[in-house]
């Protein structure tokens, strides 16, 4: 959810109307969570979940076997998947571009924790061009402070550059 919130916030700072919300499963730590984001030039009135995403971010690769994470995507869509193994087995719809990023390792190295949301945000920014790195950095610095902010920015930047090179 934090990733969704920060991406939406960064987009808002970039001048669009954005919306971010979660879909919780059961109330416990470790339960699968989905979060949804919409951007628009106009006020967003729609409240339903997102069924035909233009973009998806998968933070937990173990879900790929159990859940059709790419469901509803069409040609032109972009997926960013946190995984060490780029050749994961999944039904990727025709025309969807997948970026495999080992965000867990980057996060462990930069933050000391396997919390991948900010890293994946950097990858998202580079892959889609929907938010600028500066807006992302601003969003991170408003959410985190001091060395925590620096570390998260560094992690996001690393992923950004990694994907920017491949994009």
């Amino acid at each position: 959810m934090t990733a969704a919130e920060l991406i939406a916030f960064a987009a808002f700072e970039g001048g669009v109307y954005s919306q971010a919300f979660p879909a919780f499963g059961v109330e416990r730590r470790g339960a699968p969570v989905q979060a949804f984001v919409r951007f628009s030039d106009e006020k967003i009135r729609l409240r339903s979940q997102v069924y035909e995403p233009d973009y998806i971010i998968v933070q937990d690769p173990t879900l790929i076997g159990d859940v059709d994470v790419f469901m509803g995507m069409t040609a032109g869509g972009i997926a960013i998947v946190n995984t060490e193994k780029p050749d994961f087995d999944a039904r990727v719809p025709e025309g969807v571009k997948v970026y495999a990023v080992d965000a867990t390792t980057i996060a462990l190295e930069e933050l000391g924790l396997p919390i991948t949301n900010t890293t994946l945000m950097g990858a998202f920014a580079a892959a889609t061009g929907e938010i600028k790195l500066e807006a992302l950095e601003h969003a991170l610095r408003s959410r985190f402070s001091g060395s925590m902010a620096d570390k998260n920015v560094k992690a996001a930047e690393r992923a950004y550059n990694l994907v920017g090179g491949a994009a």
Partner: protein
Amino acid sequence: MLEFMEGSHAVAEIVKRCRPQVIAAYPITPQTHIVEDLAQMVANCEIDAEYITVESEFSALSACLGASAAGSRVYSATTSQGLALMFEVCFNAAGMRQPIVMSITNRSLGAPLSIWNDQQDSISLRDSGWLQVYAQDNQEAADLHMIAYKVCEDHNILLPAFVCFDGFILSHTYEPVSLPTQEEVDAYLPAFTPYQRLDAANPLSFGMYATPEYYTEFRYEIDQALYRAKDAFIKAGREFGEQFGRDYSALVEGYRLEDADTALVAMGSICGTAKDAIDEMREHGRKVGLLNIRMFRPFPTPEIVDALKGVSTVAVLDKNISLGSGGAVGTEVKAALQGSGASVYDYVIALGGRDVRKRDIAAVVDLAEKGKGDMFYGLRTEVL
């Protein structure tokens, strides 16, 4: 100026600016972010309030009732099971004419246990004498708290109010909102002046018992106060519009109803999705409109009848079910439209947080136009 934040946080920020003097609340999903924010604000001395941490929702509302009777502006928030636990106190609060404002982050009632949204909780207390208003987005959720205090504290009204907004769908959604400054809120909402209060120097007992000779007349007076609240809300909503640029003088809001053959009727966040669905249907030449009921109690019968004049088919979306009867809003809309000639159908939908898509709204319109109504929409017969 627009700021990007979670609905709960926007509500907490507005409540802070309303200068409550006593806050008593018990945490319950999905209201928790509001009361946690307020507790933090009190701890940081950003609000000059007494925050009473109680052991249950029954105590929370009891504490609010006592504090209100003692002459304080009070606030609480709850939902679902918590509101159910407050049942008795709700009736007492309205009977004692205390202007308590309480946020309801609408959530379904168990059993079966569910943390997800529907409007069963507040709707189940429609008999209680509390005003009920429903927000369709986070801006409305925030703004309606200010208007509620103003209406409730009017000495001609003196009633408590539920400010309802859909749990998770609004409370946990981040979107842009415009927050007024403290000065702006002070200009709109003056300090609370109680009509009467508990005072050792001038002792009064509140909530005396009434014999059969008097009980009916007491209840009649509460009923009358609720109806007076309609005009008070319209006035306060208009003043809000003049000061903040967002007008709330309408008890119901019509969307593309002017030439509609079919009208949807709904409350809360589902209206946002419905409006998008209506725009799509209109592009395909279908004449559909929406009536958003902003104020559910008192029930705006004449306003509904007026708004739906000329509509031949009405489809009510009910995020609740009065078990053994039907959707509560549908039942009341049917009564209101009695004799109008319109066909009114009721669709129980989105219970327990089931997502509603634009295609579902369109499907309801199809069903209504085919004369198929009064049903649980989208019933999954395969699991029955």
